[in-house]
């Protein structure tokens, strides 16, 4: 362990701003990317099922005629 206390660790030998900025931006941008990537799949499946319902309605309409 290189640091004696938590404040010492957070202080990063005076470079706190730069170090935590880097780590912060990294975590934030990766989290955003992962969030959107994971959500993508659900969104696509919902879209497909909506499209299927539309097609069902279309078919029903046509057979009524």
């Amino acid at each position: 362990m290189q640091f004696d206390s938590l404040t010492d660790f957070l202080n990063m030998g005076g470079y706190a701003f730069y170090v935590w900025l880097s780590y912060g931006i990294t975590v934030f941008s990766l989290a955003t990317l992962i969030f959107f990537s994971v959500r993508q799949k659900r969104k696509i499946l919902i879209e497909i099922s909506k499209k299927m319902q539309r097609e069902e309605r279309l078919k029903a309409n046509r057979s009524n005629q």
Partner: protein
Amino acid sequence: MWKWLHSYADPQRAYNLSGTLLPWFATLAIAFIGVGSVWGLLFAPVDYQQGDSYRIIFIHVPAASMSMSAYMAMATSAFIGLVWQIKSADWAAAAIAPIGAVVTFIALITGAAWGKPMWGTWWVWDARLTSELVLLFLYLGVISLYASFEDKVLAARAAGILAIVGVINIPIIKYSVEWWNSLHQPATIKITEKSSMAPEMLYPLLINIFGFGLMIGAITLVRFRAEILARNGMRPWVRELAKAEGVK
């Protein structure tokens, strides 16, 4: 000789296979990055020249090296898609592009945040930062070309060609930027001197590089699966999945 490739090209098989691989990649990525970052931030010794600011290295260098590797991976799968006409490979290339762009962006930002305490300015036209910037442009080109086509099957092919053209150019760009840099800016502090690194610093760095690679792999698999579903919306097996999801 390349027949085995085609058996994995079947969308459903590719979807299932990447589903099996995903948990492994994700778990290992979290484990590696966790160990590497904690080691790097808490236990690695202080650099005698740069103080604690050097701890940015544990994300900057993995991001920088993986940004190049991701481009290579993208171009390789685009090449497979182009030569053997495998659509899944084109889709994989399209899935990697945004991830590569984010990783390149991270490499740029962390490079700048490191440059400020070291050089006193956020941006210098250092060879590594400049070629990262160009690499970001190349990624953005692939992404926006992909986004501009309405037919995504074509979009993936067009983006694939661009990725291959880019990969031929990357070494030339990198070389010319380095040469240009040596011409205009002799003797800046090199921000990474790998050879002089103590092993206590090197190990967490290597662990993190590996972890970043696994993480990119994991996110690629997630995006690749979504891409397969989106392109195969009319196939019965996708419709089954959609039925299960849509009712919720």
